[in-house]
């Protein structure tokens, strides 16, 4: 009786909340499209101002680059917290991995995954993609190593120190480009105009591709560290 009463109360409260939400949404003004405002400005002059074909990347790494810096700082904070909480020793938990067939197949596929992640990172200003997306694909390689080949293999090939170095290099790239913006253009994280070549080529859009590479390294190494820290303590020794 007591338990049922609690559940019924919760359901009634949530239904009332749903009705209140719905009424509030009825009061909202309709979306007017892109007639004016900042979105229209970015669509009209984003290409000529930044040289980046991908306007979403232009927003992320040029107009709101400071926000992206804060975002990568959030990842850094999460990684620091997880490593502080979970890892007291940086020794791997060994496991034998999956079967021979899976190991051989992924041995063939893994270089192409790496190539795809590098493509997604470096072409972030031309095609869909960018540092965050490519970095996640990059972290998938480390996760494949841990699951398929065993975490001892991952430890040997791609040690935690190396991951930490990658993350530091990524963060320093981002910060260095920001500080270079102060000295060369006058503002923090201003797009470095002298790097711009012909629009549509790989070396264009000022400092956006380099920021993309830094963010890609940072996100890839950060997610790999998170996964490694979690798998380290939760899987028991098998051999």
């Amino acid at each position, binding site marked *: 009786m007591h338990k049922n009463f609690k559940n019924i109360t919760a359901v009634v409260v949530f239904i009332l909340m749903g009705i209140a939400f719905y009424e509030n949404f009825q009061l909202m003004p309709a979306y007017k499209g892109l007639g004016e405002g900042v979105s229209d400005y970015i669509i009209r002059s984003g290409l000529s101002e930044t040289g980046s074909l991908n306007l979403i990347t232009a927003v992320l790494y040029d107009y709101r680059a400071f926000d992206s810096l804060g975002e990568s700082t*959030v990842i850094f904070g999460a990684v620091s917290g997880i490593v502080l909480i979970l890892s007291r020793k940086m020794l791997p938990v060994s496991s034998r991995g999956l079967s021979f067939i899976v190991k051989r197949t992924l041995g063939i596929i893994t270089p192409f995954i790496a190539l795809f992640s590098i493509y997604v990172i470096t072409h972030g200003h031309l095609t869909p993609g960018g540092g965050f997306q490519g970095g996640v694909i990059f972290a998938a390689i480390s996760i494949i190593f841990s699951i398929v080949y065993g975490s001892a293999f991952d430890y040997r090939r791609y040690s935690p120190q190396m991951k930490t170095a990658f993350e530091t290099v990524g963060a320093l790239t981002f910060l260095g480009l920001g500080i270079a913006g102060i000295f060369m253009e006058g503002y923090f994280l201003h797009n470095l105009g002298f790097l711009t070549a012909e629009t549509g080529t790989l070396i264009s859009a000022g400092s956006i591709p380099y920021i993309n590479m830094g963010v890609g390294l940072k996100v890839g190494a950060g997610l790999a560290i998170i996964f490694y820290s979690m798998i380290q303590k939760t899987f028991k020794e098998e051999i």
Partner: protein
Amino acid sequence: MFINAVFIILFLLGFYALIVKKNLIKMVIGLNLMEAAVFFWVISFSDIGGEVAIHKLNEAAVNFNDPVPQALTLTGIVIGASTAALLLTLIIELNKFTDTIDRDEIEGLNN
């Protein structure tokens, strides 16, 4: 409309899991469901039936969707993943000390 109704249902499902469920991992799933509802809504309401805001070389600009909500959503997804990882880490550590992930069985939190 349809988008608002889907948003409300998803958001309230997540909120229900966060408030009512006893299992800590289910609470994290509920939190992520609320985030997913917000991202879905932000992306959907800015969709005016145009293309993704990426110029093509040697072609005139067609009608684009709004690029700003998509960039904001990318930010939100990354931060959501970071917070989810941190929460799951805390649950792992809690499980090591208390041998439970049930909210009511943890000593000190149960009145």
